[in-house]
Each structure stands twice: as structure tokens, then as C-alpha cells.
């Protein structure tokens, strides 16, 4: 299914401080924004009403929810990041700092750029990874968001 690179913990640790990868572009089109509005229960007009958003905001139309752009970090990570060999599951642990810097207009494409900031063993079989991540908007200088993301990998039990 995937051509994701598999790395050991040692290999990953050697990349601390380096850029780990840049994801494929993902389109945040109106259909996705509308679906997010439904499931996230946020129907503010700046997201779902193109005519009113064009008339009443400086964006020329609707924009994606910040939390939608943020949630796309997961699929972005799948095309940008190597996978830790032996991982059983991934847990979204938290963020230390997250800033929405520029709105993403409906129809724009975004991608994630990931730098590996830190790798630590939180408990045996639990590896905590800190990424410095930015989400870029195609054709724009200013990123949509910048964040320090903490992801926990729970490792499979070793046979011993």
C-alpha cells in the first residue's frame, strides 16, 4: 500500500534538527470545508457561504476552518514522514505552540513541512517525537500555520 520509508529509533534520532520531509499537496476545496463544517458543527458564513464571505470579509470568498487545516497534518505526515519501524499505533499527544498565520482560501492546496526537533523515550515502548511543522499554501509566501507538534508512537511488544 505505502512506500513509506521505515526507520529505526536510532536512525530517527540521528535526524534530530533536520528537515524530515515535505508532504504532497492537499486541496482544501469547498466540498471538504462543507463536510468539515458538518462534522465539526461550525457553520460560520466565512467557511460555508461564498457569496456572503465575498461581500463581508477581505478574503474574496470562503476560507477553510483553521482546525481543518490543522487536522490535515495527519495525512500530510503520511506522505512526508518516515515511519518508525515496529510502531503499533500513533497517538496525537499535543502541541506546545500553534499559530494560525494566514487564512486558506477555499480551493487552495496546502502541504506540510516537517522538521524533527526532538525524540525521546517517554516510557519503555513509547517514543515521543516533537516536530516543528509549517503548513504552506500553494503560491503564497506566508504559511497557513506554524506549530510544535508532539506525537507519541506506541511500539509493538518485543518478542523476547
Amino acid at each position, binding site marked *: 500500500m505505502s512506500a513509506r520509508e521505515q526507520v529505526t529509533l536510532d536512525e530517527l534520532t540521528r535526524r534530530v534538527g533536520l528537515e524530515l520531509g515535505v508532504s504532497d499537496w492537499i486541496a482544501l476545496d469547498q466540498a471538504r470545508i462543507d463536510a468539515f463544517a458538518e462534522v465539526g458543527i461550525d457553520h460560520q458564513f466565512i467557511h460555508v457561504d461564498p457569496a456572503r464571505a465575498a461581500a463581508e470579509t477581505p478574503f474574496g470568498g470562503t476560507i477553510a476552518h483553521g482546525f481543518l487545516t*490543522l487536522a490535515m497534518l495527519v495525512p500530510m505526515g503520511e506522505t512526508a514522514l518516515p515511519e518508525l519501524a515496529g510502531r503499533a499505533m500513533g497517538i496525537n499527544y499535543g502541541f506546545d505552540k500553534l499559530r494560525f498565520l494566514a487564512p486558506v482560501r477555499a480551493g487552495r492546496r496546502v502541504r506540510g513541512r516537517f522538521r524533527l526537533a526532538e525524540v525521546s523515550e517517554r516510557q519503555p515502548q513509547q517514543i515521543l517525537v516533537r516536530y516543528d511543522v509549517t503548513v504552506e499554501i500553494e503560491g503564497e509566501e506566508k504559511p497557513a500555520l506554524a506549530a510544535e507538534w508532539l506525537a507519541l508512537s506506541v511500539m509493538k511488544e518485543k518478542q523476547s
Partner: protein
Amino acid sequence: MSETATNEATKVRVLTRPEMRELIGKVIGISPWILVDQARIDGFADVTEDHQFLHVDPERAAAEAPFGGTIAHGFLTLSLLVRMANLCAPLLVGNPPIINFGLDKIRWLTPVKSGQRIRGRFTLAEMNEKTPGRILFRHSVSVEIEGEDRAAMVAHWLTAALMDDEATP
């Protein structure tokens, strides 16, 4: 903010700036419970392309994860903060547009199991009026799970109200 806020949150208080300022350090709202069922989790999985088995495969999740079944995406719990705030947080007079500026120190502490209900508890931590035309707010938020002691998530949420200064008391 939007019609969403005014239409659905008919009971939220509308405050002047000094009235809002007096609430610094206080809990300003606790939202009604919101159900996080498998349909909502599946919908979130589709729109955000995150189909990890923990979220969408009840049998496999029961077998391979310690939660007894599927759990909500952390980003779903986070995204529902907007809805929770709309339902309980007081508005400023004039209902100015609100920008989601960012968050500090988000921690997902406890998984939300499929079918559980959650609610938001909002404490006004800071209100900064130094920049003309905007008021910066920092809310300390905690998302509670019905029947559980430990919060699903805690965070500091940063928002900005865009003020038409002459029109707003």
C-alpha cells in the same frame, strides 16, 4: 462572530468591555454536552483522511488497543471547541468578528471513547486591549468527558475580537 453564535446560543450573555474585563480569572462558560458518536468520528476520518483503526475499526480497536473500542481523533475533540464556545461563552456588545489565532500547550490527556459526551469549560485567562482595533483573549479551556474525572484535553486558546472601536462601549 456569526449567525451561528447568535442563533444557536440565544442564552449567552452579551457584555461590555469592562464587564468582560471583570471576568478575568473566572470560569465564563460550561457548554452543554456534545455527543461524539461513531458517525461523527467516521465523518471526521473521511474529511481529514485519517482512517487509523483506532478511530474507525471497532473490532480491531477492541482487540489491539486498551480502550475497549474506538476513540475519537484528538483533532475532532479540538475542533469542537468552536461549537462549545458558541454555546456558552459570553459575547461582546456588537458581536464583533472573532479570529482563531492559535493555541498554546494543547494536551490530549484521556481518549474520548466512541459514544461518549464531552463539554467545554472556558476560563478567561487574559484580555489584552493594547492593540487598537482588536482585543486579544486567552482562554484556558478544558474538555470534560461525561462520567470521567480526567479531562480529555486542556489548552490555552488565543482569539482576537476585531473591534470597530468607536461603536463598541
